[in-house]
């Protein structure tokens, strides 16, 4: 097997690429396949052919909605949605994340909050996301934000864990990072 395919198979959820029969059920089920550089079926074929750069730098997995339609329909039982997440993690690890979609930055901004305080305040997360992408685009969000505020749906204050809980979470996550990712 190609080295790249081996790398994917070593991560939980990635091993399914061995089983693919290229029937295309995943692509036919995907709401976003037509916007992807390579359809889900193509992505597996390319991964197995060792096309590392092309796969990891594509926008495909970043347009995955995690709707799991492909996963429940795959006749080979491949966890296609999990596979997309595996490819996203590998793209992040190898610094190849696609730059034409803002999804990688969105995921990063969200995760920064999870790992730092253990909860995700919507307003903080959105502000962080727009600062990292295009602060001017945030202007478009003002009417929505005002409407949420008016309906009592926007809290400025973040939920915090008790200090000992926050410390425990941080210790666990630091250890996880020392253990070096999945593979």
């Amino acid at each position, binding site marked *: 097997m190609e080295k790249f395919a081996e790398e994917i198979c070593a*991560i*939980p959820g990635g091993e399914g690429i061995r089983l693919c029969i290229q029937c295309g059920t995943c692509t036919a089920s995907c*709401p*976003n396949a037509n916007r992807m550089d390579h359809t889900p079926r193509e992505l597996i074929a390319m991964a197995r052919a060792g096309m590392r750069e092309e796969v990891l730098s594509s926008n495909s*997995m*970043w*347009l995955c*909605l*995690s*709707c*799991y*339609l492909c*996963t*429940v329909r795959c006749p080979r039982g491949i*966890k296609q*949605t999990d596979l997309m*997440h*595996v490819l*996203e*993690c590998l793209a*992040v690890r190898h610094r190849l994340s696609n730059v034409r*979609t*803002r*999804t990688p*930055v*969105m*995921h*990063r901004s*969200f*995760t920064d*909050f*999870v*790992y730092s305080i*253990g*909860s*995700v*305040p*919507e307003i903080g997360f*959105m502000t962080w996301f727009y600062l990292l992408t295009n602060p001017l685009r945030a202007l478009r969000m003002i009417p*929505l934000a005002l*409407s*949420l505020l008016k*309906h*009592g*749906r*926007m*809290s400025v*204050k*973040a939920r915090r864990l*008790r200090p000992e*809980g926050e410390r425990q*979470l941080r*210790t*666990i*996550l630091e*250890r*996880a990072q020392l*253990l*070096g*990712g999945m593979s």
Partner: protein
Amino acid sequence: MRYYAYFPGCSASHGSAKAYDRSAQAVAKALDVELIELEDWNCCGSTPSTSVDELTSFCASARNLALAEKRGLDLVTPCSACYVILSRTNSSLKEYPGLRAKVDEALAAGDLEYHRTARVRHLLDVFANDIGYDEIASKVKRDLGRLKVAPYYGCQVVRPQLGFDHPESPQSLDRLVESLGAKATPFPLKARCCGGSLIISEEDLALGLIHKLLDSASSNGAECIVTVCPLCQTNLDVYQGRVNKKFKANFNLPVLFFTQLIGVAFGIDSRALGLEKCIVSPEEVLARCL
């Protein structure tokens, strides 16, 4: 009395879906169910964090499972994203011994152990299968007058196949709506995606998906939609105006959490259900039952 460990998730506890938490608590009380908030729970990580570093995301999620296991109660969440992430952590820990060893080691650093016995449930599952439609029907005080409701499941409450309902043609929410005296309208896209978190990074794409859903619900005669997920509610309700603008449409479909509709049928005060928090006001549609 039934007791559950309760995992509200970030949106329902402190975010834009506070009405979900409030209404869930109110109807649970009416049904002799106690939702005991899991002490010091942390964000499940949701889908975004599984796309940055898998191991770290599994560990964040596993901490909650370890806390719930100590509590000895089923862990119930009203959020479909929390549900899928926590369930997936459970099944992956069983399936992959290598992953399990690393997660155990990380948890041990925080003086926690997890023996993989916590059971993760969605609130819809608890209502449909533990409490049951008959018991829910027996508490109905207000006539919903055959209000036409589109039952919207979205994706992650039924997929990947976790067992309590069909992954593509689910029925539990339809039955629940009917047990309240409302009419569940046909809704061919009831288990299709609302765009999820891509509403933030790829808005145009997500608006297209939301448009299809609103169109499907509306063309089948629905007067309102009920959802079982904070993000689905936000996308369909908060972004409905943007869909109207982009597609030159005229939708005016209130989007309620299923717990809010149950609360209305039970005769619970609308403030206690957070109905005023809906952007598309349900007042007119519910006028005949309030």
